[in-house]
């Protein structure tokens, strides 16, 4: 029997284009920061986000609502950024810029290079925590790990950085 003119609660699978666009616009800056941190440059970072969202648009029907939509998107962005980080980068206009310190001593404490030396999981956890402001649960969903593992990973990263930076300070 077909129902007509009645409100039927339906289990919708997938995400709508509007939902994706809304999250894209709201969180764009955070996505790019994290992707830029993983890929090592703003331009490839931006590229990773654009391609990640293109993938999300194409595969939006496969989103099963097992977790939040944002976490699903983060997972795609991080995977895309990882993929790009492995690819040899194209030279772009950005690379020919002379970096402007703008009154600030760049990487004064060597923090960028210290972060770069951390294991991949620790780095990504740091980026998601500090560049994307995600909570532990969201980080866990994004990276496909346990919440407890996020906590331990962050703690280990902090400890490593603290040691290295204190050495520099001395």
């Amino acid at each position, binding site marked *: 029997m077909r129902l007509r003119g009645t409100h039927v609660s339906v289990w919708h699978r997938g995400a709508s284009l509007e939902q994706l*666009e809304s999250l*894209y*616009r709201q969180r*764009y*800056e955070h996505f*790019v*920061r994290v992707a*830029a*941190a993983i890929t090592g440059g*703003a331009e490839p*970072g*931006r*590229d990773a986000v*654009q*391609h990640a*969202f*293109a*993938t999300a*648009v*194409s595969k939006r029907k496969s989103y099963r609502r097992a977790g939040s939509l944002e976490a699903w998107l983060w997972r795609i962005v991080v995977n895309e950024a990882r993929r790009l980080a492995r690819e040899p980068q*194209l*030279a*772009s*206009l950005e*690379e*020919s*810029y*002379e*970096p*402007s310190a703008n009154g*600030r001593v*760049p990487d004064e*404490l060597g*923090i*960028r290079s210290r*972060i770069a030396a951390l294991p991949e999981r620790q780095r990504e956890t*740091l980026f998601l925590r*500090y*560049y994307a402001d995600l909570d532990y649960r969201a980080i866990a969903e994004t990276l496909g790990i346990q919440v407890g593992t996020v906590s331990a990973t962050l703690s280990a990263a*902090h400890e490593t*950085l*603290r040691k290295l*930076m*204190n050495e520099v*300070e001395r």
Partner: protein
Amino acid sequence: MIDVEKALRDELDALASATGSPDWDEVLVLAGRARVRARRRRAALAALIAATALVVAVATPLGSTIARGLNDFSTWLTGQPGSPVTESEQRAFDETNARSWLGFPAGTKLRRLIRVIDPESGTTIDLLGFRSGGTLCLRLELSGGIRSTTTSCAPLAELRRAGAPARVIIIDRGFGKGTKRAWYGLEQFRAPAIKVTAGIVADGVRSVIVNDRSGKHTLRAVSDAFLYVASNPDVDQRVRRVWVRIGKRLLPVKFAPALTFLSMTPPTQLSVPGPARVERYVRGGKIGWLERYEPRGRSLDIVPAGMRGRVKRHAIFGRVVVPDPSRRVRVALTLSTSRNGGKVTGLCSWWFDRRGGPSGGCAIRSKLFYEGPITSSFGMISGSDQFATVAGLASDDVTRIVAFLANGQRAAVPLADNVFLIDLPRAQLPARLVAYDTAGRVIGVEPVIRDLGGGASPARGRARLFSKAVSPAGSRVELYVGKSTTGGLCMYVRESRGGRPSGNMVSCSGATWEGPSLTLSAYPSMYPDPPVFLVGRVRADVVKVELRFADGARTTIRPKSGFVLCAIAKTHLEEGSELVAVVGRDEQGKPIGSQRFKPPNR
């Protein structure tokens, strides 16, 4: 002990400015959805034309050892893209070239890149290319329905420096007369029959995507170039975005949008790098070789006869020099007397480029470098819409000049015989020229060079009559109001005498008020006429405007929706009683702004 969390957050702040702005359209293109949309748009005729581009040749002989890559223009820089043109075409080019004293070097070889046929106008558009010294040129040859030829050049040095995967050289160049028309304020504009956008691509680029009002169009990169022809475009149809596709990736291409008849300078938010302060003050410099009558360059006699008279007028010595051998620009520098003869008091510079000439003029010799060791002017003479030319004179104190661009790049400015000239990419403005002495000290900093376009300008639609006034002598001023492109309003003032319009003045603003509370003008503002009309805009909190006259009289008017237009009474059109100032007052009568109109100095 260091706070790790704080250090990490500081690092976040340092990266915050590098994210750019979101572009959902690009996401949809990447996801393949825009193509679906584009198919639905029957109006996308141009895409059809682009898709039917006739590939004449794709051979790219490259006699170079430089490795080909995605990030360079090796074929353009070291080889020859496309295929040779026919012998007769080459001969026609050589003959035309030989007739011009500003021609390309003999032996310049044309290469055929792409041909597109526009069925609507019956025009064949050939994109040719060639290298000439330090420049790379694209030449459009139109035949059939529309006949025209135009050449646009870009400096190779800039291409080497930028290293982007694609460069737009020609943007929205209009040809012929189209059928579409549109009103902008007080004027109706007609669209061209076709608009052409073209550029070059790096060796690994396979396709280019352009986006304009009619949709997104994918173009095959052929012979290391691309060509987009918009057929019967709308009046305001302009290319807004360009991407290149490399493998599965899309990369955005930076370019400067086409300047239009309505382009106005925007307030720029970008800062300009490079030194802004002079380290050693140099005033009263000279051009030594000219003062010593040294025969540098060529004689003034090489200037074509039709232009020679102007250059030689009152000149007692002069030479033609070349600031940059790779550019088709010549400069005649002369020492001149006044029209009555006597001492040498003037120094003239006359500039000749592909458009003819001469442009330029004379300055008092002793005052030319009075304020600094370089003088410059800004124009569009490269032929490419993407480059703005900055050129000028430098005193002997200057050893080198460097252009600092908004993106952090810097470029050495070609300087020879005290004349300099450089083409700067408009997409990387604002820029600043800085002059150095032999010790490397900054001795000259020119004002910031800003691009045109992007500011508030008239939006599509006809302006409506808002107010009018008639002077005691019968001249008439009408004030029209229309929308601006940035969400504000445009004000049009049309003056007519004896029933015939004598001129329009346009000023546009953004959605929010910027600047002083009163922006009023007195008409006419030039000596010897006293102000007859007062017209302009006031901020919303100005509810009364007090007019003050030279004889001490005052009168008050009320702005209407922030606009003011009034004719000055006959009693105040005489010497000693004319309008000299206005004061804006708020609801409580408190003065919140004023403007002075200097009385004519009689």
